[in-house]
């Protein structure tokens, strides 16, 4: 190693260290502040309940909910697993369906104009209203749940991916045309990578919606033969006025939603950090 290179290493190491220090502080803030806010909110909730003497059957305090969560953990955790299973499947199906349709639509404006309305119809049709039809023609409970959840979750992926596929740079399109790229090659090497940021944005929306879809599907379709999920717990607990348990279930749904969002954000960051503005550090 030459002197110059050694110097560089030192400078680099120093910079690294400064960075690490900054990063550590930033990371501390990143974890610390949200945590502080969280604690404040919980405390606020607690005192709201205590000061206004709100009874547990209207709005249980955080302590009550936590106790219930621990006490009912065996039941609730099993329900959460069931709900998460449907959510995961729904997200996979929504992704495949959404991206598949988007690719189809991107092949020609005509296809897009012809089919997009039906995608919109699927998006806006109230699941509750069409469920009886699904129920008549579909036997399998899991399939029923999946269809419901899919109807709810696929649209953001479809819409965002379509937008992304249409947003690839015109000059790059020209370049591909010049090199005689096939449709498939243009899609694979140009449009799909260019659509990534949009697709991942849609995925983050769809992650939450899959969960919503799994819950709504369960509300609507029941879970006979599959094992009851969190929606069932909520209905049942609400009916029994076991409101602390209802809140415990709602909180589990929230936690699941946040976890899904974080995982998808991480995936998104890892995919985009090399090149897309939205994933680059803001520092210089």
């Amino acid at each position, binding site marked *: 190693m030459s002197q110059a290179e050694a110097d560089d290493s030192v400078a680099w190491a120093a910079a690294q260290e400064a960075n690490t220090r900054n990063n550590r502080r930033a990371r501390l803030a990143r974890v610390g502040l949200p945590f502080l806010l969280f604690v404040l909110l919980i405390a606020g909730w607690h005192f709201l309940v205590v000061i206004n003497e709100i009874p547990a059957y209207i709005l249980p305090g955080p302590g009550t909910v936590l106790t219930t969560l621990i006490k009912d953990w065996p039941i609730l955790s099993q329900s959460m697993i069931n709900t998460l299973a449907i959510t995961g499947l729904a997200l996979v199906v929504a992704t495949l369906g959404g991206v598949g349709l988007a690719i189809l639509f991107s092949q020609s404006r005509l296809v897009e104009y012809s089919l997009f309305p039906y995608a919109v119809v699927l998006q806006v049709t109230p699941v509750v209203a069409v469920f009886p039809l699904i129920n008549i023609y579909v036997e399998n409970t899991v399939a029923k749940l999946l269809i419901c959840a899919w109807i709810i979750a696929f649209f953001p992926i479809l819409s965002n991916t379509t937008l992304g596929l249409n947003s690839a740079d015109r*000059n790059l399109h020209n370049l591909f045309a*010049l090199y*005689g790229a096939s449709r498939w090659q243009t899609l694979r090497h140009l449009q799909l*990578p260019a659509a990534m940021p949009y697709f991942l944005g849609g995925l983050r929306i769809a992650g939450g919606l899959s969960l919503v879809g799994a819950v709504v599907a369960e509300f609507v379709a029941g879970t006979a033969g599959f094992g009851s999920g969190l929606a069932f717990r909520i209905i049942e607990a609400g009916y029994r006025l076991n409101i602390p348990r209802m809140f415990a279930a709602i909180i589990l749904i929230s936690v699941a939603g946040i976890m899904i969002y974080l995982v998808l954000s991480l995936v998104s960051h890892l995919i985009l950090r090399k090149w897309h503005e939205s994933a680059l550090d803001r520092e210089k």
Partner: protein
Amino acid sequence: MIRTAAASADRASESAVALRGVTKTFPGGVTAVRHVDLDVRQGEFLSLLGPSGCGKSTVLRMVAGLASPSSGQILHPHDAKARDVGFVFQEPTLMPWASAFSNVWLPLRLKGVSKRAAEARVMSALEGVGLADFAHSYPRELSGGMRMRVSLARALVTEPSLLLLDEPFAALDEITRFKLNNDLLELWQRHGFTVVFVTHSVFESVYLSSRIAVMAARPGRILRTLSIDEPYPRQDAFRTSEAYAGFCRETSDALAQAMAADAVA
């Protein structure tokens, strides 16, 4: 020493592409070029020289088939499909999500060449533009000139039969530029492909071209065509020769005339 193109029109060289009375008007109503007649001959090194905004890029894009004329015709005597073209855009136009290597690999990849099979050619193309060390860098991590060089490597890697270059060296320092000028000429002589080269540099156009089309703006048109009758191979010595200075003066005058034409048009 300089003859107008008309004098050499009876030369029996075949056309690679021919523009006949081509006019291009953009939707906004701007006429980028009007009534352009241009024969790109098989195997020649043709430069398009002209002031900024005179329609050089537009003509080049029409030659490539990337834009269609509003009126007039573009003739491709050879099967347009069979033609393989290399194109360097005025902007680097790299895929931001791919490394320099992958960007250069792209044209080969589209022809079905695997990464392993392409590796040697891609690396030698990158070597040729002095970027072998940066094969794994993303465009965002390269300087402006480096990006342009990646774009050039991408155009050269397929050894195309028609090479269309839109100011490929504008962002480069003189020494790199001279080196790349020579490399390009050498390739051209070895493979005998056709080059259409857009530039705003009189010196560069004279050094490189067998023919120069001087364009004027508003509306864009070809004002004059000059043949540079200096035998190849040309080397750095040519740059300091009397002949070179003469050609440059002549071309400069033509360009000045084009600019003046602008003023009255």
